[in-house]
């Protein structure tokens, strides 16, 4: 073997006169993390892609075909059509969140997160890399669920741009939320508490299965405090052209969450919270 004289290598390692080229390091680094995260989703597709597809198929069979036919219409469309956007969003939320929380937390647990922490990569790059993984998994599952949905109901997309932007922004928000959960998590319990006790109730009560017009005025007010309601309804508007809420409010809330969570996770990583002693 031979290990060359390291500084005769043609690649800069922090020694050029104006320091390392941080932009290209972060660009190459980001592509590396994105590729790694996507590979992870695909490598363990039996754990990442298949279970949500099966769950959602069951939802369509039970709520869509069996029960839905008795419910009739909701929000002016057949019940199966009504829940299709909700179920797609539900998959995006749980899978984007789940991907990042699992991947980041297992990096903490096996300590291979240190590979990135000792490198010159910016924290922003690391966050963006994990977001990319969460978004890819969220969208992959969303596509699959859309495919499943199309067997049960006829789907037309009324406003494609709105549909796509809502789904991507939502995937980013919940990737960040998963990252936040993983930063604070110290045990497997810590990463199952939030999905079970926070995410699931908010999602089920977030207008996936019903229009909030069914609720009494008091509970409608309560429901409006749930950000997931806005995401589900904005997405439903994109697909079906009808919604319980105004679109601009939905986008404001989504963007507010997105930037808020991004800022918070960046702050925490910079402070070393959850990752440095």
């Amino acid at each position, binding site marked *: 073997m031979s*290990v*060359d*004289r*390291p500084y005769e290598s043609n690649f800069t390692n922090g020694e050029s006169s104006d320091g390392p080229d*941080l932009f290209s390091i972060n660009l190459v680094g980001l592509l590396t993390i994105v590729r790694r995260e996507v590979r992870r989703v695909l490598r363990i597709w039996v754990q990442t892609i298949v279970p949500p597809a099966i769950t959602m198929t069951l939802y369509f069979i039970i709520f869509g075909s069996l029960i839905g036919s008795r419910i009739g219409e909701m929000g002016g469309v057949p019940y199966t059509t009504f829940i299709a956007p909700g179920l797609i969003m539900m998959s995006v939320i749980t899978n984007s969140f789940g991907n990042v929380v699992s991947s980041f937390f297992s990096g903490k647990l096996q300590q*291979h997160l240190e590979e990135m922490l000792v*490198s*010159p990569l910016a924290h922003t790059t690391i966050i963006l890399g994990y977001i990319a993984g969460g978004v890819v998994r969220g969208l992959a599952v969303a596509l699959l669920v859309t495919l499943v949905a199309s067997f049960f109901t006829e789907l037309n997309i009324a406003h494609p741009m709105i549909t796509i932007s809502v789904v991507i922004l939502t995937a980013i928000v919940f990737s960040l939320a998963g990252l936040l959960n993983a930063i604070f998590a110290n045990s*497997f319990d810590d990463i199952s508490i939030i999905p079970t006790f926070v995410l699931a109730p908010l999602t089920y009560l977030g207008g996936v299965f019903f229009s909030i017009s069914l609720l009494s005025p008091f509970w409608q007010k309560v429901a409006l405090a749930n950000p997931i309601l806005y995401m589900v309804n904005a997405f439903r508007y994109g697909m079906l052209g009808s919604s319980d809420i105004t679109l601009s409010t939905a986008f404001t809330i989504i963007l507010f969450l997105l930037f808020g969570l991004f800022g918070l996770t960046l702050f925490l990583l910079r402070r070393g919270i959850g990752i440095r002693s």
Partner: protein
Amino acid sequence: MRYVVLKALTLKNLRKVYRDSIVALSGIDLSVKEGDFFALLGPNGAGKTTAIGIITSLVNKTSGTVSVFGHNIDKEPEAAKACIGIVPQEVNLNLFERNKDILINQAGYYGVPREEAKRRAEKYLKAVHLWERRNDIARNLSGGMKRRLMIARALVHEPRLLILDEPTAGVDIEIRRSMWELMRKINDGGMTIILTTHYLEEAESLCRNIAIIDEGRLIENDTMVSVVSKLQNEVFVLTLTEPIKEAPILEGYTVRLRNNQEIEVEVAKEQGLNGLFEEISKKSLYISSMRSRSNRLEELFIRLVENKNFEATASNELKVKNIINSDKEELN
């Protein structure tokens, strides 16, 4: 052209107090020259891993400054980090990733373009004799192989400073020998190496300079040769009946004046004391008492030897066992 010898690493008054007010480092000053093969020696719990954690920015320091090739880690963290390759004490590999990918990714985190990263992954996997296992995942490697993989990973961005934290703890003698050979070759190529260890023989056979820390304090920082000779010598304090002005010359012994009635004599272990007494009589000195000066270094080494068999990597292996035992990588 530069003739100044660059400092690969400078620590100034480095302190670390962990939560629960555990003082891991209480003000360390240290510097390592470029090209050096430097040993950081100390018993378990001395603060070696903490110091390395701070240098590689995995641990937040309490106070003090750290510079890597002149780059202050607070002011130019990226430039400092780009110079370092680290082989940690505990296995921190992604056990589910292919060995080849672990190296390619690591190069990517340092901005090495992908094609070049692939070439380097091949080169360094071959260097540590793991090329045949390139498509295997890290989980299936033996302990010694994991350690070699971590060395290759630390080299893949071709750092100027390689830090190895107890790389040979718990590996059998044959693998240890081959790792020594590898480290020597790397150092001969010009890369500065800092090696922490609690094996004195390892430090002695590899390193030119050494720092010894114990309980967060630097107790020795010298060339390997002089530390070894200090260890082989015993120092006696002799109290004289009459005061003297300067240290007497005793042939074959190093003598220092402590004060006007006490001298210190260094005696090599194999020299014995009879010769010393003869010399003293020749010089007509009269001794009223004699004691052996306590030798902190030696005491430390006795502890080091006693500690030798401790299990360095047990804690992490245990933690990761959860995931290893189940095939499930997705956690929820």
